[in-house]
């Protein structure tokens, strides 16, 4: 017997394992021990994917899945009855069973939803949790006696998602109700039409093979029974629309549809009594197909209204009020102008205000699209909804409620969405010409028959002209082509939100592009390193001057990168990346200290290194000579950001960084120009910065220095010049402009709000998608036009037969089927 095997601990799952069974692996971080090969494989997978930090950061030492993720028997200490005041307005329900709607941030895929649902369902006191896949909204029911909503929110936060209570906007509720109404009408129409088609097939067969008149009568009777609800219930919106149109003396689509369906219905009833052929199926199919088309369009449009709900959700729900030395958490709605709020690191700024105490950096990308954090000190303004950086500040509230910047942006988006010109439907315009034509044809037929043939049959013949003229495939012509077109687009990474977007896109002649994040990568890159060490600048005539300057630049990068290696700052990360690309490995450093808005201090090999703005260096009594400052200003004017590097009180040099144009931007702009588009760049940056990028991408027209709220005005101005404008952007500040443009195109890497307000989303971040989208929309629209032609063609061709009084029901049925088949096959060519 050997001595009991020594116990080791598996580095992945933390289970104890005997030395004999242990599997070991030599990873870069040292020798690791695992209990089995599966654990080793998973460990490798995790580290190779770059998530090695997981093992350092996980805060549990127990075996297997951490207890916290499995079960939460102890929700929050404290009595459950003490529900936070700020949350009360969102809770519904009497007694112990409560429910509330939550909006959950951070959900990316189905597994996120799974995780949230499972964790909530296993939380004691939560009765049910259902999360909507598309809207990321959760309906939570819980036992008020066992748990509080506050504890539920904390629970969701503990697994890395952000949940906040939410009340659905009235407008959205209305849309939901509309959608439900349409669904019921469509479902009803479909079921009765299906039944009706079965009966019609019997009647078709009877027409060819002969049928017993009594049997035919019964079949017709049931057909009438099936057709009535379709026409008068499902078709009610069309009848009402037609009535409204006629009262306003407008011949719209509804008039055409109602005219066709009603005349087919009443003519069939007349024929039933006089032993003629019936057209109930025509009547019902018109309604059903058009309804189907409307339903498809409506569901796509519904998503757009969620943009506003998301915007509202950006506003924090509670604020930390300063009362003398106390801090009280209250609902944002109860905060008044002049109140003092405390904002801690990482928190969202609750409302607009002015800083009274403290220094920090604030991420304002929400409002300005600018990815660099903005430095804030007493006296600077804060914008509600932005995210506070490293410092704790106290601010005085200056704007509340409807006046805040965020509410103003929300209103801008709302207005822009509402004022988007009503879609001039191509079909509507066609029917505007077609209806008078049909009515004229029917009138001539009536008059001619009355005058020259059988007066008693004249009305009947005239009505049959109306019946055959009604294009059944009209309802399918647009939606099917749009469906095929959007499906094709989705496969090449372009999401299109509806037919109207495609329709407007093909007419676009001006493309407006946002600079940051759209034309540029949005990431800073080192573009220049300048040596400022005094000895070199005096100009030592050295044979190795070139070599030494090379080395000097490397030295500057080496120290800057060493000092910044712990930094998560955008500029720091860019310097570290640049060093890595140059093959410079950073020296060991310590004492890292970030000075918000100014730079960093760190000890590199025992020497103090500063990387940052001029002000940081001056604090340490390092003199920056005026000519150097002037040199830096020249660089900054050309769109670069300059940081100084010093070592032990000696200024080493400066590094210029810049946001660079996307590699494919110039190519995409070139292709757009060749398609006859005018490309315009719009940016909040100053003229010089903007011109650098414009020159590099080949854009001639530049609108620079545009305020975030001014972008939509510029777009509107372009539209009033008679241009059809597509706006490409990615920030929340672009959202109003995206909605104001004829077509808004958002980059998928952009903010949710931009994506929701845009009609089109590019899943890839390269701009050639814009070119493809325009090409595709032109192709789709060509197909739509052809479809409309075919939808009308067969019916128009049959009109002479009807006018001659020779209309066979089989011609009507054939025209109907042929036009539908042609339209669908023609649309499929897009795929």
């Amino acid at each position, binding site marked *: 017997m050997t001595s009991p095997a020594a116990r080791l601990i598996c580095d992945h799952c933390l289970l104890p394992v005997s030395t004999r069974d242990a599997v070991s692996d030599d990873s870069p971080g040292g020798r690791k021990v695992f209990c089995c090969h599966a654990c080793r494989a998973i460990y490798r997978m995790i580290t190779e994917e770059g998530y090695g930090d997981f093992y350092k950061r996980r805060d549990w030492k127990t075996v297997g899945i951490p207890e916290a993720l499995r079960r939460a028997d102890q929700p929050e200490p404290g009595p459950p009855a003490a529900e936070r005041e700020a949350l009360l307005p969102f809770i519904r329900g009497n007694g112990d069973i409560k429910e509330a709607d939550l909006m959950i941030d951070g959900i990316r895929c*189905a597994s996120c*939803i*799974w995780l949230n649902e*499972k964790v909530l369902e296993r939380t004691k006191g939560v009765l049910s949790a*259902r*999360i*909507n*896949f*598309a809207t990321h909204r959760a309906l939570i029911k819980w036992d008020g006696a066992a748990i509080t909503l506050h504890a539920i929110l904390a629970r969701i936060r503990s697994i890395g998602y952000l949940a906040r209570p939410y009340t659905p906007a009235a407008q959205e509720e209305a849309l939901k109700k509309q959608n*439900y109404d349409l*669904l*019921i009408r469509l*479902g*009803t129409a479909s*079921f*009765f039409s*299906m*039944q009706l088609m*079965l*009966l019609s097939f019997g009647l078709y067969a009877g027409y060819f093979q002969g049928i*017993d008149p*009594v*049997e035919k009568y*019964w*079949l017709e009777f*049931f057909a009438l029974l*099936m057709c009535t609800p379709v026409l008068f219930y499902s078709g009610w919106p069309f009848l009402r629309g037609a009535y409204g149109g006629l009262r306003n003396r407008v011949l719209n689509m509804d008039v055409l549809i109602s005219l066709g369906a009603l005349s087919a219905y009443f003519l069939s009833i007349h024929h039933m009594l006089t032993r003629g052929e019936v057209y109930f199926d025509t009547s019902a199919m018109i309604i059903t197909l058009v309804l189907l088309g409307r339903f498809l369009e409506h569901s796509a449009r519904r998503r757009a209204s969620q943009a506003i709900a998301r915007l509202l959700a950006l506003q924090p729900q509670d604020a930390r009020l300063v009362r003398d030395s106390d801090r009280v958490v209250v609902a944002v709605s109860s905060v008044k102008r002049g109140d003092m709020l405390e904002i801690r690191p990482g928190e969202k700024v609750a409302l607009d205000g002015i800083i009274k105490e403290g220094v920090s950096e604030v991420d304002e990308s929400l409002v300005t699209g600018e990815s660099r954090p903005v430095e804030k000190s007493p006296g600077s303004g804060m914008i509600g909804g932005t995210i506070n950086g490293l410092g704790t500040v106290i601010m005085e509230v200056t704007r509340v409620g409807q006046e805040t910047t965020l509410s103003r942006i929300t209103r801008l988006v709302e207005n822009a969405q509402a004022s988007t010109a009503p879609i001039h439907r191509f079909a509507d315009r066609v029917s505007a010409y077609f209806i008078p034509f049909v009515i004229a044809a029917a009138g001539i037929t009536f008059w001619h028959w009355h005058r020259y043939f059988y007066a008693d049959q004249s009305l009947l013949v005239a009505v049959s002209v109306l019946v055959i003229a009604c294009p059944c495939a009209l309802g399918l012509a647009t939606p099917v082509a749009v469906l095929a077109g959007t499906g094709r687009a989705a496969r090449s990474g372009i999401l299109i939100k509806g037919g109207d977007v495609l329709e407007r896109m093909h007419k676009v002649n001006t493309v407006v592009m946002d600079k940051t994040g759209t034309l540029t990568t949005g990431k800073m890159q080192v573009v220049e390193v300048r040596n400022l060490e005094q000895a070199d600048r005096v100009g030592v005539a050295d044979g190795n001057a070139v070599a030494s300057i090379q080395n000097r630049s490397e030295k500057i990068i080496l120290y800057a990168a060493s000092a910044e290696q712990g930094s998560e700052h955008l500029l720091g990360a860019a310097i570290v990346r640049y060093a890595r690309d140059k093959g410079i490995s950073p020296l060991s450093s310590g004492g890292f200290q970030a000075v918000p808005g100014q730079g960093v201090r760190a000890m590199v090999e025992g020497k103090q290194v500063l990387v940052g703005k001029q002000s940081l260096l001056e604090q340490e009594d390092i003199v920056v000579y005026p000519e150097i400052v002037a040199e830096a200003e020249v660089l900054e004017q050309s769109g670069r950001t300059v940081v100084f590097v010093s070592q032990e009180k000696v200024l080493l040099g400066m590094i210029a960084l810049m946001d660079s144009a996307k590699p494919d931007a110039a190519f995409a702009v070139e292709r757009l120009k060749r398609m006859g588009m005018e490309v315009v760049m719009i940016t909040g940056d100053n003229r010089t910065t903007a011109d650098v990028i414009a020159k590099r991408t080949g854009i001639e027209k530049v609108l620079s220095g545009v305020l975030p709220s001014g972008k939509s005005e510029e777009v509107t101005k372009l539209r009033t010049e008679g241009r059809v404008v597509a706006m490409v952007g990615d920030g929340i500040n672009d959202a109003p402009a995206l909605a104001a443009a004829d077509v808004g195109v958002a980059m998928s890497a952009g903010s949710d709000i931009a994506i929701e307000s845009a009609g089109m989303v590019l899943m890839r971040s390269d701009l050639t998608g814009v070119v493809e989208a325009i090409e595709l929309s032109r192709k789709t629209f060509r197909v739509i036009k052809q479809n409309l032609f075919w939808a009308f063609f067969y019916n128009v061709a049959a009109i002479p037969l009807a006018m001659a009084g020779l209309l066979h029901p089989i011609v009507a049925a054939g025209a109907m089927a042929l036009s539908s088949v042609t339209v669908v096959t023609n649309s499929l060519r897009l795929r």
Partner: protein
Amino acid sequence: MLWTIIALIILMFAIGLAGWFIFLWAAKTGQFDDIERPKHRMMDDES
């Protein structure tokens, strides 16, 4: 013959009607509210 046809039509109509009622019930109880999530839910672990 005639009564067979009528009976068949009525039977067919009854079946169709049943389908229609199921649809109405489904729409009313929100079965169509979210058509993405349920297909993923079946992949979830039990419990």
